[in-house]
């Protein structure tokens, strides 16, 4: 085992390039002479090569849930495969717990995967010929664990994802949601430190998706893994992430907390994403707080630092008395409490 640096970030990615085509390494080396990234990319494309990931740089802290968000074709799946070294990156460095895994040999890599890394796939990647238990226990089998240990551990993680009772089923007999629970259970079987999730909930129905997101958050709250999570859904990213990286055409265009992404997009592209996002749910009162405190403030609805805009609005509205509602002819037909208006606009938070 190489030395583990406890202060190092869980994952650090520096200058990572993934170019598809022939003789990519030389081509990239030559192209890198160009001034800026766009120029490099253009040179590569001009030679018939596809730069799927361009000069990615970021860190994932220990216990952090880091989301990479982008549209399909933006290179996010390629990026996560470079980090997990399912693909050989063309250039750059990836350190996991301070260890340069691009330098790791085959044996070390297998060792890392058997003990330290776990991955969940968009279409589950379940082994069709194995039962649920065998699927979940497969990484343990690779570790060389005895059958008894494997079955016991599989039961344990299956219980965690709420699949007890389906141990002997085959993947084809399960629903989509159940299949992804198996996928999650399998990736957790060896209790990895680093957890890769590649669009784990994209293939599921909205209802199931939300249910699994919530359970995922719950699991993460107890396990505190360092996570790289891929998604194309901004709402999912905002809901789950500690920090978000937005990718476009292989490039990371912005890295920030959900709030930063929503309120301070670096360009129109990112702004376009957050346009439909209900800002009230993701921004806090600090983001609209005045610099100078006015002298006269008669009402105090009880706003606190860290309160979302939605919540703050509801608090303010609660100060109002009910107001009248008229019909088309101007006749008074009823009354509405402004506090209820704000509450109705708010989406229930769990």
């Amino acid at each position, binding site marked *: 085992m190489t030395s583990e640096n406890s202060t190092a970030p869980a994952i650090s990615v520096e200058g990572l390039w993934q170019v598809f085509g022939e003789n990519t390494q030389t081509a990239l080396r030559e192209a890198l002479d160009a001034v800026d990234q766009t120029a490099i990319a253009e040179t590569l494309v001009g030679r018939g090569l596809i730069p799927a990931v361009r000069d990615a740089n970021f860190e994932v802290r220990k216990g952090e849930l880091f989301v990479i968000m982008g549209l399909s074709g933006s290179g996010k799946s390629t990026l996560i495969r470079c980090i997990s070294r399912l693909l050989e990156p063309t250039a750059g460095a990836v350190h996991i717990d301070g260890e340069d895994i691009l330098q790791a040999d085959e044996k070390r890599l297998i060792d890392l995967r058997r003990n330290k890394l776990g991955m969940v796939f968009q279409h589950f990647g379940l082994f069709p010929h194995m039962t649920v238990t065998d699927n979940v226990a*497969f*990484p343990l089998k*690779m570790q060389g664990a005895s059958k008894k240990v494997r079955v016991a551990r599989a039961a344990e993680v299956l219980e965690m994802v709420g699949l007890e009772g389906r141990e002997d089923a085959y993947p084809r007999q399960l629903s989509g949601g159940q299949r992804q629970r198996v996928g999650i259970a399998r990736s957790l079987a060896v209790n990895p430190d680093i957890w890769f999730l590649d669009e784990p909930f994209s293939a599921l129905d909205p209802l199931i998706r939300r249910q699994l997101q919530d359970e995922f958050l719950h699991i993460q709250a107890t396990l505190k893994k360092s996570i790289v999570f891929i998604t194309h859904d901004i709402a999912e990213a905002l809901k789950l992430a500690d920090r978000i990286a937005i990718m476009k055409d292989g490039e990371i265009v912005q890295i920030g907390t959900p709030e930063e992404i929503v309120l301070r997009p670096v360009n129109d592209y990112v702004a376009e994403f957050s346009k439909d996002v209900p800002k009230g749910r993701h921004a806090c009162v600090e983001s609209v707080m005045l610099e100078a405190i006015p002298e006269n403030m008669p009402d105090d609805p009880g706003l606190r630092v860290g309160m979302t805009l939605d919540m703050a609005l509801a608090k303010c509205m609660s100060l109002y008395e009910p107001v009248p509602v008229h019909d088309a002819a101007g006749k008074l037909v009823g009354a509405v409490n402004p506090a209820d208006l704000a509450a109705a606009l708010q989406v229930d938070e769990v």
Partner: protein
Amino acid sequence: MSVIERATRKGAMALTAGTKAALFVIVIGAICRLLGPSVDWLVSWPDALVLPITEWVGLGVGWVLDVFKPIARFFSYLLNFPMSWASFVLGETPWPLVIGMVTALGWYLGGLRMALLGALGLGFVLLSGYWAEGMNTLALVAVSVPLALLSGLAIGVLAYEKPRVKNAVNVVLDVMQTVPTFAYLTPLLVLFGFGPVVGLIASAIYAAPPMARNVLLGLERVDDEVREAAVMSGATRRQQLFLVEIPSATTQIMVGVNQCLMAALSMVIIAAVIGGFDDIGWEVLLTMRKAQFGQSFLAGLVVVIFAIIIDRMSGKLAEPREKHSPKVVWSILAIAVASAIAFSLTGWNSSDVRAFDGVADAVDSGVGAFTASNGATLDALKNNAMFYGLLPLRIGLSDAVLPFTWGFKWTLTHTLMLYGVAVAIAGLLTWRGKPTAGLTTLIFVGMVEVGIAQLAWPFVLAGAGALGWVAGGQKLARFAVVLLVFILLTGLWERALLSLYLSGAAVFACAVVGGALGLWAAVSRTAWAILRPMCDLLQTIPLFVFLIPVLMFFQIGEFSAFLAICMYAVVPMIRYTRHGLVSAPEEIIEAARASGAGKWQEMFEIRGPYAAPTILLGLNQTILYAFAMLVIAALIGTTGLGQSIYLALGKADVGLGLTAGAAMAILALVADRLVQGFAEERRKALGL
């Protein structure tokens, strides 16, 4: 030449690849047609340029055979053990036990239907009196199939693991499947020595490719994420392959196992030509020699039954299956043991039964009586087909049109008139914006006027090259031309053209008839219910058996060979056409219906174009089948490469056999690649 001018004038906007290719072929064709009568070497390749490839191959292979003979002999010595075990086990096991075990297996795999299939099928074999021979055939299959499966698996995995050798492996598989078995029986005989081992290896060679292809296909189709999941679980490469990827590909691999079984079974019969084993194939050959059609059909049916049982049961392996009560299995086995004891006590011998001899004789005399009473009709049918169809196609209208068949003599005027009409049609089509169709018509008219067997070689090369260029670009064009030049150099060109003519005619007929039947089966459920079992029968019956009725009705000659080829080669055309038409996605069909398309509009406007790539694949299979049958049809008496292969087999001439086999394989391969090129292009055009 006016066509070219007009076409170029019109095409000044943009000549499509097809038009350019057709123009090129027409120019070459016209030159050959004009100069052909005076310049001999245009029509027949000059002998001086024929390389003694046949001798070289003979010498080279002879040398190789000598080197490998000891190893091969040792191998066949080893193979003799499983061979004799298998035939001992199958031959000595009392028949009630064998039937019982197959029935029980049928039950286990597929419930009552499969159990009944096993029991009734083997019951038929028993009562036909061919039990012993049947078991010998099964013993052969029982050894050759594992051999084919293992080597197929190894080849498939190799091609999958080493992408660099994949293309090479594919070529080898093509060669294994297209070189007729008869062509390499002699070298195998020298190499492995006399006996069933040769037939066993021949059938393994033929049966391994479908396994290899399906293994490769299955492995390539393993979901990327499944593969990655195995990697991320920390599996080594070997663990990934054997614990995850191969098991995940099981369904596809089982399709391969099924095809492998069927191929081995069909080849075991052909390998019986060598003899050395008292099996069903030998029985078919013996009865064929006596022209005992009923008996030979009966023996053939035994193989069909084996094929159907093996096909259906191994087909079940590929499907997820429901559980069937093991109690039934045990009771079936118990009954089998009991009756085995009972029958061995009574000393009843199944080979004396021959319950169907009466039927066979009746069929036999029925065929005879039918021939006797319809002789005139049959002859008229044959003569008309020959005079107005096959002969003009072979030697061209100018030679085939004779006063006492067509009522007039073909003269230069007729030739000019024919070309005039063709040019007019071509011009009309060009004017209506379909220059390629017009030019192609002109080319076909030219081919019929000259006759396929008398086509000038530059024209054939140009045609193949042009087709290749259109279907798959320069690479394919080069592939086709280089391979055909090889045939020219061997001196087998004339025979190759004869083979080309006969299989071409058969493929054309199959395309028309099979396409129509496929369409019919697609629109009518009843039609498919009738056609399907017929297709099954035609595909599983030993190829030899096709020759029997054909020979009886139409005697020796090209028409009989033509019919035999058609009977076998029409099947894939029917199947693929129907499948393509039926399997258009429901959404597209709904969209068409919502747009107000009628039944036939839907068929031709929507389903037809969607099915085009599938139908082309069917055509491709039909071509390969036609070439495979061409060799068998030589038993009826055809000229062409098939005959050369037999001649070589008879004279134990390894060089000639392999060269003629290679020429045959080249024709099949070139045709295969061309059609696949077009299919691929259609698929891409449809975005499939």
